[in-house]
């Protein structure tokens, strides 16, 4: 009974399946981007100033922070965890950037920017080690590091962060190359690099393996501890990058800078169709979720209604998106395509 004696019909039927199969991730990605595009076009009815290419570019710039932070959140959720320290790390890196580096930084000062990211990565490593080695649940461990880091940032600045953004960061966030905003190029490069890391490398495959079943991955020879710790380090670093981008964008830091990003990172990952329990999902879908959420935010902001109703609509949309993107919705869409 060698594989060569297998009935050829078996392999033939497998090929046929591949041709007609619609992958759920693809449906999610397409529907989130299509919804975003539709919203931008439809927003022309709200205000004639909207619905232009300019607005689309603004949405992408605004969603860049969420995209970067949600990448880290997505990796952690992929390995079956959750990172509640995102907000604190965004704030920490922003505060460190304005106080350590500052607007008059020379070449030596710029070298401190990687140092800030190293600090973030080390904090991520602490979270990861607490979870893997000490066996503390991710929810609690990252909440604890988040509370500690937030208090550290508060104490370090005595409540009022000083300083403003270093010139290179301002240039990155506000500059243009041949009419294209540098931020767009940076975000595109980030998305490609991140998607390749998660979808097309050995490390990425190990993340999926650990998320699907840590025990099975361990038996198969995956270094589980190292992979999980790396996911938390990458998440902390991504939050740090988002913090630096926010400093460049708003030319300063505040202690509440990261607060409005924690829950949206989780929402972007979930709206992108990833299971909150880990083991499934793709970064491109998360990007779709982040863009969709930001588009909604800007369109709703343009409606000219109060903050309260705007928030109500945002919350309702998260629920509607969740209901539409449920598993059985995919099953229904798939059933439209004949096998």
């Amino acid at each position: 009974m060698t594989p060569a004696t297998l009935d050829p019909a078996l392999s033939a039927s497998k090929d046929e399946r591949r041709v007609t199969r619609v992958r759920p991730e693809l449906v999610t990605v397409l529907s989130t981007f299509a919804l975003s595009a539709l919203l931008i076009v439809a927003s022309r009815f709200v205000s004639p100033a909207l619905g232009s290419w300019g607005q689309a570019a603004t949405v992408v710039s605004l969603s860049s922070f969420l995209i970067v932070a949600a990448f880290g959140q997505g990796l952690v959720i992929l390995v079956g965890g959750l990172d509640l320290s995102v907000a604190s790390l965004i704030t920490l890196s922003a505060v460190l950037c304005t106080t350590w580096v500052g607007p008059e930084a020379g070449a030596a000062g710029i070298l401190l920017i990687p140092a800030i990211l190293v600090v973030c990565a080390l904090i991520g490593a602490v979270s990861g080690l607490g979870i893997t080695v000490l066996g503390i649940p991710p929810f609690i461990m990252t909440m604890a590091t988040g509370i500690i880091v937030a208090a550290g940032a508060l104490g370090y600045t005595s409540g009022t962060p000083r300083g403003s953004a270093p010139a290179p960061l301002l240039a990155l966030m506000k500059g243009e190359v041949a009419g294209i905003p540098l931020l767009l190029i940076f975000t595109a490069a980030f998305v490609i690099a991140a998607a390749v890391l998660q979808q097309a490398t050995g490390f990425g495959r190990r993340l999926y393996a650990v998320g699907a079943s840590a025990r099975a991955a361990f038996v198969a020879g995956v270094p589980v501890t190292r992979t999980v710790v790396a996911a938390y380090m990458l998440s902390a670093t991504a939050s740090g990058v988002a913090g630096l981008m926010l400093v460049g964008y708003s030319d300063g830091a505040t202690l509440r800078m990261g607060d409005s990003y924690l829950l949206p990172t989780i929402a972007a990952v979930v709206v992108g169709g990833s299971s909150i329990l880990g083991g499934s999902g793709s970064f491109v879908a998360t990007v779709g979720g982040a863009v969709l959420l930001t588009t909604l935010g800007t369109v709703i902001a343009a409606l000219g209604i109060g903050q309260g109703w705007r928030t109500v609509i945002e919350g309702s949309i998260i629920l509607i998106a969740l209901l539409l993107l449920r598993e059985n919705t995919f099953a229904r869409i798939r059933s439209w395509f004949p096998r």
Partner: protein
Amino acid sequence: MTTQVASLPPSAASPDRLVRLVASGAVIVTILYLILYGLYALWEPSALTAYTFGSLVNNTAPLAIAAAGETLVILARGFDLSVAGVISLTNVVMASYPVDGPGGALLSLMLCMAVGGIVGAVNGYLVAVLRLQTIAATLGTMIICQGLSLVILDAPGGVVSDFVADTLTDTLFGFVPVSGLIVAAVVGAWLMLRRTDLGVALYTIGTDEAAAALSGVRVARTRFLAFVAAGMVYGIAGFMLTAQTVTGNPNSGSPFLMLTFAAVALGGTSLSGGRGGLVGSIMGAALLMLLQKVLFSGGVSSFYTGIFQGAVLVLAIVFSRALTHLLERSRA
């Protein structure tokens, strides 16, 4: 013999039960609380007066009750982020529609519990019937509640009835804080609930949902009721917070989100469901608030409170795990 669902220990005094009791979060966190209170009394002799204790209980009550509600959902293996939304919402409702007198206070309490119960029913429907992930669904309802709070009261302000503000922060007979009695009432209700079918079902769902369903536990119904009950308890927490702050603030619930989960975890309830209880969560909340007070009286800048809260959270869990491990090993 074979029909027994939960495996009960053979006798009350068996070593199994003793080990479990000593290593249970509620006992550990209570011991930590007493130690910390002793330190506080050494530092600040006024700590032993009825006034200081009363004001500490008053400060603790909203968080303790919120954590108690959250425990119901966590035991059935879920997370409820709407706690922050319900507290904000009930707070602004009370500050916008104050009703005077004892009857008014009762009416306000009913209103708060009704608001919480409705939010809980929405959560329960989304999770138990439509089968959404709990974190994601309650994230949505939390944001909606925050928005509605802003619609009702767009800036801090409003009026709270004098009866609510004075009576609920008062002490009976000079030493029993009224807010403590409300917490005790919540505990009493829990102790009764725990012995009902619903209470047992909560634990079994949290331990093994598939097995619970196979043994005839109505999983969806239990989970729905857990969310409704939790929502009503958050309503009480919002009621107590309003009595405490005597003002309305559409963001008043936000600080509760993290602290509630911290209190539940400190109290030894497993965040993956099935193990723990409500009393531990209340003691966990008490420990977090006492810690704040001790640090303040010790002259530590309030900026750094979070560092200690985070450290205590991690240490309590590591300690409880290590103790369970050691006790189990010494028996073997």
